[in-house]
């Protein structure tokens, strides 16, 4: 349904069109003949074009509104999950700390007192190693959850996005080369500086690059691009030639704990944290993907400033 203001705009524009019809029809009425018919046809055509334009505009506005509503719902959902999960993470950290310490203590005892049977000793050590490893795994999850839920105010400063992106690209390039993954760069040299939080943005870009190289696996390409977007936005695109994301998963990828990685390989919090960070920076992340062809994530950062303004 169109908004009230849109309906008013529509009515007022139709009113103007009606006036134009009357203004054109009155002299045509007096002169009569083919000129009169041609005038009417012209007016009808103008009215048709104008109405079509209005309808399209209303539809476009509605689409934009729906998209904004979806973004709002996603942000609210993530905020609610963040609050709940950080509470759980806090409560889990204490028992985890106790388990970790008990492992250390048993290790100490084993150093002091020898177990007779070497096989038993080896199994005990192996079990302790596994308990410690799983505590580390849980620790990583709870600490990331707390990162996700953290409402840290960004520290805004003027940032050269091209340089920041290139720093992160170099960071992942060494490992990418070893897997025969080519990092393709395309930077817009006229990109303005952006007022944003540099460490937070770096974290997001690195996360997207790591995801991209993981999706490719080996023998492929990861493209990183900076561009000017709509309304003065600065966009950072990270695309890969990897496995792609199934359509049914696309609306879940920013949800906490959603992961397609095997157990123990990913917490499913990376993209949720990225989404939260970019929202806090006043921007958004969009994604397009096709199974078997790859995915492209775009960070849309608001309002740049001209170079040298900092």
């Amino acid at each position, binding site marked *: 349904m169109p908004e009230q203001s849109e309906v008013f705009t529509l009515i007022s524009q139709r009113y103007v069109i009606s006036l134009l019809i009357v203004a054109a029809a009155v002299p045509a009425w007096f002169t009569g003949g083919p000129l009169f018919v041609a005038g009417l046809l012209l007016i009808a055509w103008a009215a048709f074009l104008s109405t079509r334009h209005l309808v399209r505009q209303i539809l476009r506005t509605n689409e934009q509104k729906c998209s904004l509503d979806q973004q709002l719902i996603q942000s609210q959902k993530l905020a609610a999950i963040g609050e709940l999960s950080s509470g759980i993470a*806090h409560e889990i950290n*204490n028992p985890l*700390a106790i388990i970790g*310490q008990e492992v250390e*203590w048993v290790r100490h005892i084993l150093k002091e007192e020898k177990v007779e049977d070497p096989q038993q000793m080896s199994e005990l050590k192996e079990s302790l190693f596994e308990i410690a490893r799983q505590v580390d795994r849980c620790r990583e999850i709870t600490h990331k959850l707390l990162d996700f839920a953290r409402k*840290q105010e960004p520290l805004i400063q003027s940032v050269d996005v091209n340089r920041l992106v290139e720093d992160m690209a170099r960071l992942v390039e060494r490992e990418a080369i070893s897997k025969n993954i080519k990092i393709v760069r395309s930077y817009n040299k006229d990109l303005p500086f952006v007022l944003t939080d540099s460490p937070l943005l770096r974290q997001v870009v690195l996360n997207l690059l790591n995801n991209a190289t993981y999706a490719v696996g080996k023998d492929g390409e990861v493209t990183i691009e900076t561009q000017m977007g709509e309304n003065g936005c600065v966009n950072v695109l990270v695309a890969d030639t990897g496995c792609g994301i199934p359509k049914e998963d696309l609306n879940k990828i920013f949800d906490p704990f959603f992961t397609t990685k095997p157990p123990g390989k990913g917490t499913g919090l990376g993209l949720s944290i990225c989404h939260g960070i970019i929202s806090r920076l006043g921007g958004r992340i969009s994604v397009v993907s096709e199974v078997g062809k790859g995915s492209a994530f775009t960070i849309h950062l608001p309002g740049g400033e001209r170079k040298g303004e900092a």
Partner: protein
Amino acid sequence: MSSKARVLIVDDEERFRITLNKLLAVKGLDVHNVGSGKAALEELGQRSYDIILLDVKMPEMNGIEALAEIKKIDPQVEVIILTGHASVDVAVEIMRLGGYEYLLKPCPIEELLEKVDAAFERKMDREKRMSKAAATRTGPAS
């Protein structure tokens, strides 16, 4: 370095503080533990410590309140916060009150030992400087 450090663990989780006490003691530290902020203040009235490992979420008196009181009793003691409840606001408040370090549980024992060593070293350096300055002030008049 840390072999002579006197450490007080303040945590309401009994099993946590007892095992940590044992782990630090076998590393040569002089360790005691108490289960609340109030008990920590009483303990400080009887003995002096170099380092306090302090939990934040405790009944009656939380870690932040305890830290403020501890610093009134002994401004020189180094306080390391060891908590499962991370929050930027709490961390900032702890630093403002003179806390030395803020660690999130579960923290690997090696990392904790490093922080304890560093805190003890800092306290020893400061005490050395203070005693040197005091000796200069009270030195023999020429």
